[in-house]
């Protein structure tokens, strides 16, 4: 906890030196971003794109979810280091879940 406060104070004091110019810059970026986001938010920009886009491959999210299932399985398995049967069962279940996920995703998109 003390460490966190020290880190916070350090960050705060180093920010304090550059505070004014950085904050003015940040404020300008904020207002500019809000202005630039408007065509996207009202939909004008998106409609322009619709006619030109085609669906592509699914990549990142599939990978992300596979890793997430594996990690959660691994985490639970690590809680039962002294019970081999339970640990192996958890590994097998997460493996089945991964395979099921791949199957369902592929069947939808193929």
């Amino acid at each position, binding site marked *: 906890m003390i460490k966190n406060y020290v880190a916070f104070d350090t960050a705060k004091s180093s920010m304090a030196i550059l505070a004014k110019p950085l904050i003015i810059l940040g404020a300008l970026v904020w207002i500019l*971003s809000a*202005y630039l986001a408007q065509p996207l938010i009202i*939909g004008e920009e*998106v409609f322009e794109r619709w006619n030109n886009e085609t669906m592509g491959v699914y990549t990142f999210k599939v990978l992300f979810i596979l890793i997430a299932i594996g990690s959660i399985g691994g985490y639970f398995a690590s809680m039962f280091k002294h019970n081999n049967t339970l640990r192996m069962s958890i590994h097998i279940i997460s493996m089945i879940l991964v395979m099921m996920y791949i199957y369902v995703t592929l069947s939808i998109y193929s």
Partner: protein
Amino acid sequence: MLHSAYTVKITSIGIVGLALTYFLLLGSQNLTFFNMGEDGPLFVQTAKFLSTGAPSPGSPLFHLTNAGWLRVFDFGTDYGTLVILPSLYSAITAGLLYLITRNLLAPLLWLSSGVVLSQSTILELYTLVTLSMVLAYYCHTKNHRLLAYFIIGLGITVHHTAGMGLLALIVTDFVNKNSIKPALVTLIPLILIIYVPLTNREPYYMISGHSTSDYLKYFFSTASGLLGGLALYPTDDLVGRIWDVSRILLGGLGLSILLVIVTVKQDWKEHLLPLLMGLLPLIYYSTTSDNYAYFTILPTFAFGAVIASKSDWKFVKNICIGICSILIVMNIFLYDFDRNDPDKTAVQFYNQLETLPDNSVLETCYCISNSIYVNMVYLYNRNSEKNIYVLDTEFYRIPRGMGTDGKPITSESWKQTVQEAEEQNKLWRVKANSFLKGEIVPATSKEVLSNYLTSDFYKETINGNSS
């Protein structure tokens, strides 16, 4: 500064009133294509005729509240009456944010965001989803965990994105070594989904029939986002996605992101719940296939505001309050419907439908999603009891996979429908490059078919079905 409970409540109510006035002044009074308002006609239809809405997962709570409201109040048009509700949900969220944080920064951050404003002034459900998540968070902080899970369950019956709130609650309880059994309460409100089969009747729109496969398609095929693993556009659009996310996030939270980082760094465990509730929708939007689904990050703004308000960095907080005030004024000019859409193009499109003869076939456009027109045509059919058949690439329906004779569509019957419509001078299309204007012009079968016969869509769906 100490606030008495009474003062806080009065201020919260005042904020709700002011926010509601702000949204109502800028709100759309009639059907609009702007602010991604293409679901508006669908929601008018579901409220008026109690029909099935879009999946994810059918939004029963939203439709039922709309239907009840429409039967009690009348403020001119159906749309004008219903559009008050999203504004009200958003205004209540603003008041709730003040009640939670006891700091003006939170409601100001919420109100100054362009995305929040855009979704609070059209007929959409995302403000209700966010309200359910903020309310669940509030109950959780007050240690009413059962109630928190129940409310998030209600949120899921509005839209599946509230499921991210459920995930956040479970993870927080797990990390804090609380029992996660109360999460089972989330299942109770899901009984409302029975609305979907009860309202699924002819003329079918969202679901083709009553078979199990029809319902599976409805829940899992169209709304495949429920399963994750959504399609991403080719990597060359990744830069575009990063640009979109940056603009929207920086334009909404701006400098307060700095406050969020510093506050979370101080004690991440204390802020885990609002952090997850805000971060998960952001990840969802950043990786979803629909680049226009920016409205799913409304909770990011709400919970970003909650965390930023807890910061003790007063100098930056005061600057943020100042900029929020500037943005609120700026947004009045940026998001005014009369300025953005002086021709009221959605209304114009609707009016053109009246000039088409009965049983016309209208090809809306050759693009990824054209539900913007399809929803409008279906609303028109319902209101006028006329039949205008829609050809579209997304659902290949005349309507919804059925031919004009009501039989399942094949490639031959599909072509025949187009050709017969041409012979009877009843074939129309929405003029290309006039997407927001929606100009309807006569079409030839050659024009229409050439779009489809060579497309991957046609080969994979129409041909696939007939074989």
